[in-house]
């Protein structure tokens, strides 16, 4: 049973939706409080985020640094454009691998859904090729997790 939906829209958009049991205020806070972000925005098993800068105000900076604690790592930088507590965040971000990827413009909405929250992230990439590259990068990270699980099973 998966609560997550990921789909592409048009040439350059990616839409991610997910429902949470907690109210919008809590989900919103978990997206911009560094101490909370460091607990969950980690990707595959074994990765940590030693550096988490998140200035939740328009123009505020975002910087996340990840490591697999085995010599591999990469980081993300971004800037906030708009914040509407506790319902909407608009920001841009790019990965540094270490070459920066093109900007990903993201609008995240937190809508009350019963006692929980329906979250909708709408990503806008510059073009279709960039979107493909971004999804491919995500695949690599997902693949690492799959291989790690496979190793654990053998």
């Amino acid at each position, binding site marked *: 049973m998966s609560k997550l939906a990921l789909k592409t829209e048009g040439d350059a958009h990616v839409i991610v939706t997910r429902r*949470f049991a907690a109210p919008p205020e809590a989900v919103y806070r*978990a997206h911009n409080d560094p101490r909370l972000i460091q607990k969950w925005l980690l*990707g*595959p098993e074994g990765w940590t985020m030693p550096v988490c800068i998140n200035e939740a105000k328009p123009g505020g900076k975002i910087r996340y640094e990840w490591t697999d604690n085995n010599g591999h790592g990469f980081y993300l930088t971004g800037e906030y454009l708009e914040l509407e507590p506790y319902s909407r965040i608009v920001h841009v971000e790019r990965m540094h691998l270490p070459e920066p990827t093109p900007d990903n413009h993201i609008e995240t909405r937190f809508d009350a859904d019963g006692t929980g929250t329906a979250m909708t992230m709408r990503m806008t990439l510059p073009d279709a090729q960039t979107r493909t590259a971004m999804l*491919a990068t995500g695949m690599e*990270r*997902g693949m690492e997790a799959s291989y790690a699980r496979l190793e654990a099973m053998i």
Partner: protein
Amino acid sequence: MTTWDLDAAFAALADPTRRAILARLAKGEATVTELAEPFDMTQPAISQHLKVLEDAGLVTGRVDGAKRPRRVAEAGIEALDQWLAMLRKALEKNYDRLDEVLASMEQTRKKRGDKR
């Protein structure tokens, strides 16, 4: 796909140019000449990448006079599907962790006797 094919497919997909070529072919047939232009690469370089994709069973071609247009093979479509499924999995892992973070936030709030 057998396990063996899957290994070859993942090895072939380890290169960003080959992933981009596969994504382009997913939209429809293209010749080496047509592929070389948007990728800003020489035709021999594109041919080399196509050979790896073909050997992995992700891309197939047909003969049309002097041309040999390539398209995504059945296994290539599966690989592309898997591509999205794996990204979904990495995201799911994050959000499963977020569920736990939210649950512990709720616990803390209750302990404090916050009635909001």
